[in-house]
């Protein structure tokens, strides 16, 4: 299992390097989109918004959203690309089940997306917009992991759908934009907090804006965070297995 994880991690880094233009243009797109959003809100809000926490919330919310979409999109796009290339079946012939390979890829991407993209970009964005965000690193990582696990569950569901239908890019886009509401907007409603990443985003805002640390959150906050994370991951696994089995019955693994 460990070798399989390392193999997936190494492959991800190789591809990031080989497809460097794509990597650089994704970073540029993320920043441009962020500045449009940030300065758009600032222009509409007027001078008083500079003193409020809304702008800091936007920075945190935006980068949480990025972690979220990168996590779930990675799986679905990965399956689509592999089906196109012809490598999907080859990965399926491994004695280590495909869902574990997907999980290893998602964890690899999570590490990369957080360590090399989201966290540095968040600091960069805060710095270039004149905002100051204070983070306790342990709390930040805890929330990132808790939040991303639920996103991985969504990724598994999308990946399963991609195994059967292959062309699911429009559906992925709908989920991507729908997910904005999970992460960007603060709410106290329990139903909203049960949505993937929503609870993690809410706790992340408390960390970024009020400096709330891990031990200062209520027990119910932790409980909801992990209930949501494990719930979505379990559902993701079950749904993925069902779609995978269906694809094997109809023989559609490699068809694109």
């Amino acid at each position, binding site marked *: *299992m460990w*070798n*399989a994880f*390392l*193999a*997936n991690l*190494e*492959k991800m880094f*190789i*591809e990031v390097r*080989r*497809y460097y233009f794509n990597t650089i243009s994704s970073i540029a797109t993320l920043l441009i989109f962020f500045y449009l959003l940030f300065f758009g809100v600032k222009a509409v809000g007027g001078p008083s918004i500079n003193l409020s926490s809304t702008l800091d919330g936007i920075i945190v919310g935006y980068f949480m959203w990025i972690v979220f979409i990168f996590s779930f999109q990675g799986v679905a796009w990965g399956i689509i690309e592999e089906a196109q*290339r*012809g*490598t999907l*079946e*080859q*990965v*399926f*012939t*491994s*004695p*280590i*089940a495909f869902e574990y*390979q997907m999980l290893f890829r998602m964890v690899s991407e999570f590490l990369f997306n957080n360590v090399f993209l989201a966290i540095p970009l968040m600091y960069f964005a805060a710095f270039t917009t004149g905002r100051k965000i204070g983070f306790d690193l342990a709390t930040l990582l805890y929330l990132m992991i808790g939040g991303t696990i639920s996103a991985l569950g969504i990724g598994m569901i999308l990946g399963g759908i991609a195994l059967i239908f292959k062309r699911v890019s429009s559906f992925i886009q709908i989920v991507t934009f729908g997910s904005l509401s999970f992460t960007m907007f603060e709410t106290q409603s329990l139903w909203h907090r049960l949505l993937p990443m929503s609870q993690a985003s809410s706790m992340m805002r408390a960390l970024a804006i009020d400096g709330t640390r891990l031990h200062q959150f209520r027990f119910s906050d932790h409980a909801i965070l992990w209930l949501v994370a494990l719930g979505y991951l379990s559902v993701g696994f079950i749904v993925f297995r069902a779609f995978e*089995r269906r694809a*094997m*019955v*109809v*023989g559609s*693994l*490699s068809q694109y």
Partner: protein
Amino acid sequence: MIEVIDLLKLYPKRNSKEKIKAVDHVSFKVEAGEIFALLGPNGAGKTTTIKSICGLIIPDFGEVRIKGFSVLKERPKALAQISAVLEGNRNLYWRMSIIENMRYFSGIRGKKLNKSRALEILESLGLKERANQLVHSLSRGMQQKAAIAVCLACDTDVLLLDEPTLGLDVHSAVEFRSILKSLKEAGKTILLSTHDMNLVEAVADRVAIMNRGRIVVCEEKQKLIDVFTARAYKIRLVCSEESKKRLRELGFNGWNENGNLIELQVNLTSSQKLYELIDTFRSNNIEIESIEKEMVNFEKIFISYTRG
């Protein structure tokens, strides 16, 4: 080594409730250390059979066992015994080098491939100098060899090769045959599905010919060739127009003609039939100039089993 037992795979017909039998109760065994060729025209069910062996397709009935492990019930153990080249050169990551592909595919099987072993494999395939070259920059033949290298990096006793010579030029195809022979010498068991009769003739130990989802013959290659060679005759006759008319009446329809000399190709089930045929020609006053046993190639055997 590989046992395919009563395999049945049905696919739904488009816009219909009917189902097509892609594989129709197929059974065969591949013994350790042999090269077993699965032949058949397009749509015969070869690829579905191979994919069922790899666990990529769940059959409607029957099962596949690899070294005694059921692919359906003991999937990890069964798949740990085999590695496959399924889509020729498409089963590699084109923006990764050969050695990176080898490392990745052995890694996802839980194995760590050390560099010296990787280079040893590449050397045996004549690819050592290209170890760090990206797959997309290799020729088709090289890519096919790289796919075999990846297979070997997985370090299994059984290799499944689906259409391994598809799209290869003559030189690469010839080279590929010698690679398969050396793999057999190294103790590998190889199941290959192919349209390439020259490959089958050159390397296979046993052959199963599939047609319309069924196995129509499963036999040692040499036995098949011997049987067909024993049956195939080329008979030259000196014929008048009257004799030709007689021949048609006797059921002979096609022949090569050169003036009053005609050449018939006949397949006979036994040498007794040959004597009966000679008697028929004599009694009909058809003069026999010569009779030759015909050399049979595998293409003829294949066509005779899959025609109609």
